[in-house]
């Protein structure tokens, strides 16, 4: 009994211990080897930079978050619509799938120069890159949810005289929701990658741009501080979508709920 409780306390403490341990090890490694700050700054130096540049860092982080969210929202709307069209119509599915796959195979970084030519340097390239990079998983998931209705369910409804539309509204869409919300976690992460990449290359603002400038100045501590800011931002956005997913599709997580 006692050992069990200790084990549980240990398990709860483990994430903290490992995280702190990681940074402590890093600090020791840098100090012992006397590594230059230009190569790998110690965590203490990064913390200093974080504090020193807290103003610009938070400002640019907010901007990046906005770019990511804007691209993400467009991706959600577009992904839902296209996913439904794909899932509901075999013709649309068969016709557009090769195009979609081909499009998805393009590394989206390669699109940024084209976006710059079209829209110039500014807020549009990050938003559009975030959108382009993140809509695909949403489309695929929504389409899959719609297309994998159990044949028996469909039979039950069709024998009642249900139209195709009835079946999509009553079964397809609710069924696709867990797939949809599950894909949001992937999509937001991708959107984040997209906006930062585009900011790095084609913007005067945002964490990506801050990093581009820090890199030109060889300000390595600031570069790492920006990385930390990105990590925090990424975790927040991921966690937010994970919470939304859990809220919206409790029934799909029934196994966990039942055991809780």
């Amino acid at each position, binding site marked *: 009994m006692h050992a069990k409780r200790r084990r549980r306390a240990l398990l709860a403490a483990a994430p903290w211990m490992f995280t702190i341990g990681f940074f402590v090890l890093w600090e020791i490694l840098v100090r012992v080897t006397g590594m230059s700050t230009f190569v790998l700054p110690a965590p203490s130096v990064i913390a200093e930079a974080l504090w020193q540049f807290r103003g610009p860092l938070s400002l640019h982080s907010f901007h990046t978050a906005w770019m990511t969210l804007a691209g993400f929202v467009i991706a959600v709307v577009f992904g839902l619509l296209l996913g439904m069209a794909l899932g509901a119509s075999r013709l649309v599915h068969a016709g557009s799938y090769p195009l979609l796959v081909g499009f998805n195979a393009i590394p989206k970084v390669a699109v940024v120069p084209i976006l710059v030519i079209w829209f110039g340097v500014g807020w549009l390239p990050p938003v559009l890159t975030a959108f382009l990079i993140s809509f695909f998983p949403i489309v695929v998931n929504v389409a899959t949810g719609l297309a994998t209705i*159990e044949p*028996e*369910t469909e*039979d*039950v*409804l*069709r*024998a*009642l*005289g*249900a139209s195709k539309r*009835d079946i999509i509204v*009553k*079964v397809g869409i*609710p*069924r696709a*929701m867990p797939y949809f919300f599950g894909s949001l976690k992937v999509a937001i992460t991708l959107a984040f990658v997209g906006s930062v990449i585009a900011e790095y290359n084609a913007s005067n603002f945002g964490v990506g741009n801050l990093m581009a400038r820090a890199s030109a100045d060889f300000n390595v501590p600031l570069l790492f501080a920006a990385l930390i800011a990105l990590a925090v931002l990424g975790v927040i956005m991921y966690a937010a979508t994970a919470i939304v997913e859990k809220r919206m599709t409790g*029934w*799909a997580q*029934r196994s966990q709920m*039942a055991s809780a």
Partner: protein
Amino acid sequence: MQAFVDIHDVTHIYSGAEDGAPAVEHMTLAVREGEFAAIVGPSGCGKSTVMKLATGLQFPAKGTVVVGGEEVTKPVKLAGMAFQNPVMLPWRTTLDNLLLPLEIVQPHRSRLRRHKAEYVARAEHLLAEVGLAGQGAKFPWQLSGGMQQRASLCRALIHEPKLLMLDEPFGALDAFTREELWCIIRDLHAEQGFTVILVTHDLREAVFLADRVFCMSARPGRIIAERHVDLPRPRDLEIMYTAAFTDIVHELRGHIADARQAA
């Protein structure tokens, strides 16, 4: 009297079948209104196909299917169906699952919103009849397999269909739950007088419930024998231990064995 479900000389080939071989061939089957018919046969012989043909989910390549005096050219709109897998929608409560057919079938569809209370009462009455009183608020995944199967039976009956199609609905249940559900379906049939077509692997189930049992041949399926079950109704579970009952089961067993031999 004209048959309620009349499948006449039907041959069906699935469009997805690679070999192009028919699933059923020269199939003829007539079920009277209010009759309880059972179909037995070897696995893969086309029993589920007959269900799909009778409900307009598939259309025959040859022959005619007439249900309720009309030739079937589209899904029939009047059939309740239940399968081996209860296929309840997990995001709806059991009660809402039961109401689903009413959201599809007219005239309930347009009445449902205004007369919700009346329909909910009907659903709860049905739930009580299958021994699920007060379970409507639970989600299907909070029910056991047997309870889900009862609920799926209720869903098949909620819109008071004239035709009930049961495709091995008791197959996955334990022996006791199965017998309990036999009695439930027996009583519902006696009470409401709908027409039932039951597909089953279990000869005792077929003989206990049905007025007539049809035996199918191996694929391509057709009816090779038809047995009128003249046991008096209402039938008690005890009847399964009488000689008359066992004789019929035995006779049907012989037909199935022949069908499998021939395959």
